[in-house]
């Protein structure tokens, strides 16, 4: 494999990493700098079952609190997406017993009003902004809660598209609101009740039901392997 050495990335962080000392749930361990928090736990010999899901930053299973050296501020991250630095301490967030309302979405008569029956705590937001600060996906959670309460379901559904349901916005809420669950309800209601019906989709479903493609199917499915290959080549 002839490789021109001019094409090598040799920045320090991809060269052999140095070891750093971090704290995992109060225990000091030495791990290579820059690996993810989840990998650091594996490196330290811990079996991880709860706390890992997708390993890609999408499922929210790895919600974690962390603090960097000498900084009093405790922050949040997704452990599978966070690189460790020297002196960092972290602890995974245990499952939080937030209350999820259950509902028959399609049967709701007035979803904007129903919000207050399903989540009566939602309008009690005290504007502390702790939820926004806790969100590893950088969603303006507080703003979202207000928008939900004021019935701007469309904005909420757009703002929370990034929500990985990690739940980190919930334990911090002084009004016992679970903002992500409120937003999930609101987003679903927006989709099911307040979005335009796509006309083209119904047309296509009807075409299929009416057998409009049957003739073409017959033709295609009766072809020999060779004919089919030739036919495929003409579709570009």
């Amino acid at each position, binding site marked *: 494999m002839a490789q021109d050495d001019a094409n090598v*990335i040799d920045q320090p962080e991809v060269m052999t990493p140095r070891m750093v000392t971090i704290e995992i749930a109060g225990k000091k361990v030495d791990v290579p700098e820059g690996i993810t928090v989840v990998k650091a736990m*594996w490196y*330290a010999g811990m079996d991880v079952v709860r706390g890992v899901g997708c390993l890609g930053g*999408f499922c929210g299973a790895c919600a974690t609190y962390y603090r960097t050296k000498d900084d009093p501020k405790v922050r949040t991250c997704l452990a599978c997406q966070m690189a460790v630095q020297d002196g960092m301490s972290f602890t995974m967030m245990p499952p939080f017993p937030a209350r999820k309302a259950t509902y028959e979405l399609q049967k709701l008569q007035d979803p904007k009003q129903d919000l207050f029956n399903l989540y009566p705590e939602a309008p009690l937001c005290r504007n502390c902004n702790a939820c926004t600060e806790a969100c590893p996906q950088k969603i303006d959670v507080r703003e979202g809660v207000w928008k939900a309460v004021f019935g701007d379901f469309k904005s909420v559904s757009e703002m929370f598209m990034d929500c990985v349901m990690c739940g980190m916005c919930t334990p911090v809420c002084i009004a016992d609101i679970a903002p992500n669950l409120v937003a999930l309800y609101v987003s*679903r209601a927006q989709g099911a009740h307040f*979005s*335009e019906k796509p006309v083209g989709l119904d047309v296509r479903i009807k075409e*299929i039901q009416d057998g409009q493609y049957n003739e073409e199917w017959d033709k*295609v499915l009766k072809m020999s392997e060779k004919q089919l290959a030739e036919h495929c080549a003409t*579709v570009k």
Partner: protein
Amino acid sequence: MDIHALQQIVHKTRDARRKQTIPKFAPTERDQLIHKYHPDFRASAYRPIKFGPNEGDKTVMELAALLEGDSSIQDHADLTAHYTCDVLVIGGGGAGCAAALHAHGAGAKTILATKLRLGDSNSVMAQGGMQISVAPEDSPVTHFIDTLKGGHMENDHALLKTMVEDGPSIAKWLLELGVLFDRQADGNLHVKKGGGSSKPRLLTCSDYTGLEIMRVLKDEVINQKIQLLEFAAAIELLSDEAGNCTGAIFKDLDNQRHVVVAAKCVILATGGIGRLHIQGFPTSNHYGATGDGLCLSYRMGAKLAHIDTFQYHPSGAVYPEQLIGQLVTEGIRSEGGHLVNATGERFVNELDTRDVVSSSIIRECEEGRGIRTMSGRVGVWLDTPLLDAEHGPGTVEKHFPAMMLQFERFGIDISKDPVLIYPTLHYQNGGVKIDTNSETNVKNLFVAGEASGGLHGRNRLMGNSLLDLMVYGKRSGLTAAGRVASMKQGQLTLKHLQRFRAEAKKHGNVSGVISPMILPAYTRKVN
């Protein structure tokens, strides 16, 4: 050299490249390329399976060992049921949720058991979108043809026809559940063009399609009060005297106890195999993608299809180290992103099928036109800033927020700098052979989603998996639920396992591993 210095060539050649069109390979060229460079054709990575329903068929070493592996259940294990239900769904990804919702909706007493939490799966990560022929210029037949071409003509026609025809009604179901697909100004569904497709056909929810669908399906599973068993890993199936499937044994990962579930029908929706790291490849898959469903079904006597072919997604991240193997969505290429080698040249039509694009990236790297990192990895550039240049500043940020955030966490702005990529193990093209009701050759054993096989032929087309999950999740759920009313719960025995063990013994018990794997062994042995 500094990464920024190496990236200069991408910036410098951008304008010239924008004027180029790279033709797709002619069929013979394409076949030559794939045969020479695609990992599926590395003969030394393969061996024949020694016994069982696919005796003599070749697959990768990693999988062969697991398929021939032994069960952790003893012959005389206590099989008293802890739970009894009509339909047992195993796996909490897209296929499992769709199956459970439909089975429950049709009146069956349903249990959904899954290895991690509900929704921790490959499904949440799907970014690129879902193929459904909704555009006026498109049709189910065209969808069928495109998929056949992508699958090298080896797709099961009946499965494929069913999927493309059920597609539009699946879109409607998801919309009714509140899934927020992107729209055009006139309210119709917005469709994007995906690699290997002749028409724009990808339905998207920003670049969070899988996450959005899964948020909604999970919520609905909970709303419907479907019984959930989380952190329950299926480790063996159960059969009656006639060899029909009658339930499963789980390991509770919190306390290591065995949990026996009796069911009239079982739907396996356990997903893919990325975490087997076939041929040493990194993977885009979730933690639990260890091919468990294949092993469980194989021991029951279910036949597998196309298990010699895997999809290596062209664009897995190579840099930074923390993101190795993670996907850089194909959407970037759909929107016109170029692949660029170390000399600043394009080398493939970026919208060709995944096997072709991956093979050509491997070719560039093996022939010395790759960019190497000091940790020994190699890759080529994906010109992400081109999207802003082409469609206006802010395009990358607007269309790929998930991608932006992922790299931003490591100080990389992908709208300004190209990313380094190399193929990553992504998808199991084959799996357990099913019919159009999603049932296997073992009666009352259904398999849905990535764990099933036949539909995608030798190469799945982008966006077809999400549709596959919904269509066959639904079909398995409805067929199973439709059957249980007139059925009695069968006996719970391990007859199939005794048969399997006898065969393994005849072949010298060579595998030496216990399967299924459940979770990959990433924990370092610390003395």
